[in-house]
């Protein structure tokens, strides 16, 4: 047994992973530990007075029926964002993979939205769908749809899901396209010779071979929807109407950043962190089994 592996020096491997570990410590573990500590305190905005309150911050949250509802809202939102962004990206990737001419142009165009800041994406979609000035809202009204996301919770949710998913389509597209291009042509040709049509080739060969990519993207997208979407929501709906689009991470942002209630915001982010850890573990334990590598 070769315990030293490929490295002759005992320190070289540590030195090589060192920077990555340092980054993780400084930017992930340290803030996470701080959140844990802060969630046990109540303090004023400027941090001049801190009081240890034990688990009171958590108790207050769990006793709040509106907080419980935010879980359901988050589940709908995360499910919606993941489905829409994965679905749209897959369709676009399959189409782009078949394009013979100008493929690079299409690819670049699809990748563009990823560079747009979340708050801008929210504002952009808000302008398109604003009941008074939005161009698409105008079109919807012409079609007889009573479009008013300011008061209709379902429509507001649709709006933020679209805005949040749109940003993520580009990212997913890149991975799907790479995944598609890695599928050996020989397999598809052999299937075609055996009489498989385009749909059954897609279903029986392409999809299973893409499943590792899809699984990875599903995890990434769920995490994105949980953590990285407060900018879109703040710009588009501010969590309204009547809490219809208030997801957990938006509440953290609102109570902590806008309301300066750091204790509660820290407790909320600890809960959020626990949920995402649990979700990721569950995804790896249960869904990964169905993935073909």
């Amino acid at each position, binding site marked *: 047994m070769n315990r030293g592996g490929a490295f002759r020096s005992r320190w070289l491997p540590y030195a090589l992973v060192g920077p990555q570990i340092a980054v993780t410590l400084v930017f992930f573990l340290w803030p996470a530990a701080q959140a844990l500590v802060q969630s046990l305190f109540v303090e*004023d905005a400027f941090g001049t007075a801190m009081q240890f309150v034990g688990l009171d911050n958590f108790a207050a949250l769990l006793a709040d029926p509106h907080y419980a509802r935010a879980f359901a809202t988050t589940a709908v939102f995360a499910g919606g964002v993941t489905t829409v962004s994965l679905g749209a990206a897959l369709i676009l990737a399959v189409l782009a993979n078949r394009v013979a001419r100008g493929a690079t142009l299409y690819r670049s165009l699809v990748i563009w939205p990823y560079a747009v800041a979340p708050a801008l994406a929210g504002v952009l979609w808000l302008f398109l769908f604003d*009941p008074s000035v939005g161009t698409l809202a105008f079109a919807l009204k012409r079609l007889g749809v009573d479009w008013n996301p300011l008061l209709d919770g379902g429509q507001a949710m649709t709006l933020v899901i679209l805005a949040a998913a749109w940003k993520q389509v580009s990212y997913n597209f890149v991975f799907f396209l790479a995944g598609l291009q890695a599928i050996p042509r020989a397999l598809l040709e052999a299937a075609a010779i055996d009489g498989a049509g385009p749909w059954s080739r897609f279903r029986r060969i392409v999809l299973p071979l893409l499943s590792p990519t899809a699984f990875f993207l599903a995890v990434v997208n769920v995490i994105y929807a949980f953590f990285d979407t407060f900018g879109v929501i703040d710009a588009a709906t501010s969590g*309204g109407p009547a809490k219809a689009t208030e997801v957990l991470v938006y509440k953290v942002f609102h109570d902590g950043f806008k309301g*300066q209630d750091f204790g509660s915001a820290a407790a909320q982010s600890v809960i959020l962190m626990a949920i995402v850890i649990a979700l990721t573990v569950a995804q790896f334990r249960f869904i990964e089994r169905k993935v073909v590598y």
Partner: protein
Amino acid sequence: MNAACRGAAAALAIVGAVASSGALAQTEIHWWHAMAGALGDRVGDLAKRFNASQKEYKVVPVFKGSYDETLAAGIAAFRAKSPPHILQVYEVGTATMMAAKGAIRPVHEVMAGAGKGWNPAEYVPAVASYYTDHHGKMLSLPFNSSTPVFFYNKDVFKKAGIEAPPKTWRDVQEAAQKAKAAGAACGFTTGWQSWVMLENMSAWHNQEFATRSNGFEGFDAKLAFNTLMLVRHISLLSSWAKGELFTYGGRRNEPEAKFFNGECAMLTSSSAAYANIKKNAKFEFGVAKLPYYEEETGAPYNTIIGGASLWVMAGKKPAEYKGVARFFEFLSSPVVAAEWHQETGYLPITNAAYLATQKSGFYDKHPGTDISVQQMNSKKPTKFSKGVRLGNFVQIRGIIDEELEAVWAGKKAPKDALDEAVKRGNEQLRRFEQANKSAK
């Protein structure tokens, strides 16, 4: 040290003395603000003019984003031990700043420390009282204050045969019906619903918004706005929402667009919306006082303010505080304060600025611009009408917005919504009280 060397040193000293009267020895005063666009340009002008007026101090204005972003930036900078000298904080952050005893330096101390005769009585009482503690000491300098007023589309009113702007809420209903009948898409809308429809309507009718003088007397205040008067008012608006006389247009100032694009015939929003409406409206519009209920005894009283004030942060050098005091004197001087009022639509902060504006004939040339001042000064403020000062007010306004949205959508009865808002808001007040125990 030889002669040549001494000569060089003397020359250097002269150069240094000349330079120090220029930029080198200037004390910099950092001012973090939240004024975007045209208002931001005005803030830049103020600093430039102050800097040109004297040589000792240099005010450096820095735009920090929206009000909440500016406050968050100020707090983060204080925690990192490098706050700016002056921080502009919106009215809902007032309680947070007042509670932060160790983080701020009260304006009355800054002004007294500068050793000049400073008279707090020069400031418009209805504005200054908002930023004054219960011992009568001014804690922050009033800067940009506004109050809600009523805007109406004169063209639509003419077409609908409405003679005078509505005085009472019943007149508004009638006007909205007539405007709709005359083809307007929407009768009435409002910006800042919590501020206009709850906080100001309470003051306008001398109704309690929160106990302990609306929170002015301490952090142990409890919300009390589920009054009969407000339940009736929200019920009336809710019936208008059902009958499509009132259209909800959003929590902040988005509804102003519904007015200036001609969709809604009437709007209640901040007096500071005047400039924006004037720029965008392609019709004649008028400004009037907020409607009221004639059956409420003594109504109307006075309205209360929104906007922001300037806070001085703690931990700076005495020379820097002198500079801040000089700058605040500059801002409060009649000419500067009058110009700021006239150019922005914000309320005049001193009596002298108001009188100067009146004398110059500005109000006659721009009818409606003095409505806000009249409203503020129409009666001596009572303990229910001098303002609202609550901790965690950002969250409380959010709660009120949510509950009102449920009413406008027809999902909740007005009384249930107000009761629920009071209950949920009180939880926020208790959290704030707990967090600021030491600061009472």
